[in-house]
């Protein structure tokens, strides 16, 4: 079994940086997820919207990577919001206390509106 791949596509929209994830988010995703995030200069990417629409599986190691990203973003005064999570993973994010540190929007439009307000 090969390591599951995570693809991250970065887009800019209305001054917001979209990170679109595809595949699983697990311990194998560190390079894709954190590597891509760390390649974005904080001064030029103040608002980041994470797109989970094409993510089917997130495990606790994957959540840990998201926590690490939120920690680094907080230190760099960046705002990070999310959309596209399934109801289950929205519940999981809430369960571990992540909703106090990021917002989950129902869709991309709502996320962009919140981050450009």
């Amino acid at each position, binding site marked *: *079994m*090969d*390591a*599951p791949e995570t693809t991250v596509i970065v887009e800019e929209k209305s001054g917001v940086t979209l990170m679109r994830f595809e595949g699983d988010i*697990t*311990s*194998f995703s560190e390079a894709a997820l954190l590597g891509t995030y760390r390649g974005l200069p904080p001064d030029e990417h103040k608002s980041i919207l994470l797109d989970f629409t094409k993510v089917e*599986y997130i*495990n*606790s*190691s994957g*959540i*840990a*990577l998201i*926590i*690490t990203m*939120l*920690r680094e973003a*907080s230190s760099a005064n960046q705002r990070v919001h999310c959309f596209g999570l*399934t*109801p*289950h993973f929205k519940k*999981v994010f809430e*369960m*571990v*206390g*992540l909703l*106090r*540190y990021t917002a989950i929007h129902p869709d991309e439009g709502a996320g962009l509106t919140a981050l450009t307000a």
Partner: protein
Amino acid sequence: MMAQPKATVELKLPSRLGFEKVAMGTASHVAKLMGFSDPRIEDLKTAVSEACLNAIEHGNKLQESLSVVVILTLDAAMLEVKVIDKGKGVTKKVTAPDMEKKLHGEEASRGLGLFLIENLVDEVEYVSESVEGSYTRLVIHLEKDREVK
């Protein structure tokens, strides 16, 4: 399916990350056959995945020669999943994650698995170094599922 006697499905997985998804998929299919709702199946999938990850990483310490054995036992009322490894078992007390500390770097980002397991299934039991090995036992009840619906 409901009136059937107790049945068992057994899996033997290598201690390699990624194989937890095999157990997760099997548990999902069995739960669906039993009539659990989709949200409960999603909860079970995460709990089984986390129990297997724990067995692979911490129990068998990623030694591929050691197997993680997953035994699913079902009857008319409930589904039990035992995840067995060769480690010392879970002995620490499971506490809620302190996200404030995690986000300030005062606590490791990881360490959420057991907390998720305990909050997603109806019963959890940790047994250390039994004849079978150490195991995590998860149970979900169909009756509870009906209450949720």
